[in-house]
Structures are given as C-alpha cells and as structure tokens.
C-alpha cells in the first residue's frame, strides 16, 4: 500500500511553522520535500517529520546560528510557557518512571538553565525572545537554547574584569556571585554543577566560543574553545 503523503499545509500544521518556512527549507536543502512525478506541489512523509523533529541538538543549534523559525512545539516565548512545559516533562518522567529518583534533579537542572535565560535577558533580548526547550525521554536527553546575551555579557555587569567566554563559564559554574545588584542572581549554574557532580547526569553547555562539559559523577570542569563564536546559550542534559 502506498504511504499517505502529507501536503505542505498539513506538514506546517504538524510542525507548528509557516508554509513559507517549509518552502524556504526545501529550497535550501535543510528539509527537502517530495514531489510526485512531474508535479510541482511539495509533500512530506509523516516519518520524515518525526525524524526532523527528533534531532533536538541540530534544531536548537540552527536556531541559535540562523535564527530561523522554530517548530512551535519547542519554542517557549515567555517563562510561563516554559514553566508549563517543564511541568509536562516532569509529569512524563514520573508517568513513564524512566529517571526514578533523578526526576526532581533533572527537572530542577532544566528549570534553572531555562529560567536563567529568562531572568538575565528579560527586556534585553537582542532579537528573538524566549528559549528552545525540547526533550526526548526515550533517549534520555533534554536540550535548551536561547538567543540572548550569553554568559559573558551577563556576568560582566557584576564581574567587569572577565576577559573571555571561557573565564565567564568557569565563574558561572564555580564561584558564588554574592550581592544581588544590579539584578537578581540565583547562582543556579552552581546548583547545576553540584547536581551533575553527584549524580548520573551529564551536561554540555556552550556560550560564545566556550564549551563546558560536566560529566556524570565527576566534579571536574572541562572547558574548551569551539571554532565558532555563537550567541546565547545551548545546553544538553543527558541522564
């Protein structure tokens, strides 16, 4: 039996993006449509949509680098949307009993990283406000990203001596930043580090040209420089 193909309008509806974006992605090769023999209309397989939406890291990274439209299922324009989806992830983790006692820690870590994006960029978003928040419970992965100012620019307000992204990440994850001016600071990334150091959870975190890796049950901080200097923050939590 021939597989039923979805029209471009149906595919756009499922992904939560515009038809124009799908046309653009087809032209650029980012997400290529199917054409029936000799036809000009674009069609999509359900399976291809699922595969496209399952590559969380690529979607998040492309959003940071290109600022292209994001499938609506991953986009949290404000913190209320983020809180609601975070609670939904918590409910799924509990219902499917995948993470057991780690559940509150995974939710708290994702919550601190996502809330950091909102708390530090509110009213200062360079272009697109909000965060990317996607998770694949089966693959035990949570991905968060924002197109905000990044850790260096944010921390420089209280630590003007910081010279580069690497130093900024080290401070953000290790030093207690005391004093609550000029903005509230929860020291949430220190919490993230402690949770990862004491539990079977790992974290990849990128801001600017600095990439930090925190490994499961390990207190070491691994910070390297990436080839590209990207904006905002990208975080991948694996458990």
């Amino acid at each position: 039996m021939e597989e039923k193909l979805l029209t471009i309008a149906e595919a756009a509806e499922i992904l939560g993006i515009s038809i124009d974006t799908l046309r653009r992605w087809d032209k650029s090769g980012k997400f290529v449509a199917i054409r029936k023999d000799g036809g000009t209309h674009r069609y999509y397989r359900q399976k291809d949509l699922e595969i496209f939406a399952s590559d969380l890291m690529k979607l998040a990274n492309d959003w940071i680098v290109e600022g292209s439209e994001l499938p609506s299922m991953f986009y949290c324009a404000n913190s209320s949307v983020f809180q609601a989806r975070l609670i939904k992830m918590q409910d799924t983790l509990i219902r499917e009993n995948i993470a057991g006692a780690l559940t509150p820690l995974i939710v708290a870590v994702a919550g601190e990283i996502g809330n950091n994006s909102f708390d530090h960029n509110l009213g200062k978003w360079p272009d697109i406000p909000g965060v990317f928040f996607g998770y694949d419970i089966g693959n035990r992965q949570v991905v968060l990203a924002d197109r905000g100012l990044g850790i260096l620019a944010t921390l420089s307000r209280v630590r003007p001596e910081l010279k580069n992204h690497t130093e900024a990440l080290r401070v953000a994850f290790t030093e207690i930043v005391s004093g609550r001016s000029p903005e509230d600071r929860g020291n949430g990334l220190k919490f993230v580090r402690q949770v990862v150091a004491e539990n079977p959870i790992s974290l990849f975190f990128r801001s600017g040209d600095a990439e930090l890796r925190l490994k499961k049950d390990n207190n070491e901080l691994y910070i390297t420089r990436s080839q590209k200097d990207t904006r905002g923050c990208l975080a991948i939590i694996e458990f």
Partner: protein
Amino acid sequence: MRIELKKFGTTLISRQAGKEALAAFQSILAQAKPDEILEIDFEGVITFSPSWGDEFLTSLLNQFGDRLVLSPSDNPSVKITIELLEKTQNKKFKQA
C-alpha cells in the same frame, strides 16, 4: 505556624513564582506572633530549585532568622538547594 509548600505548587522552580508565593503569603505571616516558630514543610513537593528557594526561603530567613525552621526532606532537589542557599548567604537554616 506550619507552612506547607505544596500549597504553592509541587514544582517550585522560578524566581517569579517564588516572589509571587512570598507576596501572597505576607498577609498570613503578618498574623504570626512575635515569638512564633515558622516551620517549613516540604512534603508533597516534587521539584525544588534555588531560584524559587532564594526568593522565598532566603527572604524568610532574613525576616525571621532562627524562628524559621525547616522540616527534614528526602527530596534530593530540596537538599542540594538548601546547601547552596546556605553557601550563598553564608548562613545556616535551622533544621527541625
């Protein structure tokens, strides 16, 4: 006075929600007697984070000092959050 945090929700994670919880609670706190102990009960909370905790618990600690007492909790997100808030504030919470 016993403060059941689950009445503010089972997922206590953002600064904004912590601030709202504290503001909503001020009218009840105003009724506390001058020497009354405020006991924080974490029972029923699924996820707790430093952002919410800093807005709510740190503010109460600064307001009530030793009159603020935390009930024990097995929840790992509660334990690590309390440890971090103590380090950040360089103060200890009184444990029940």
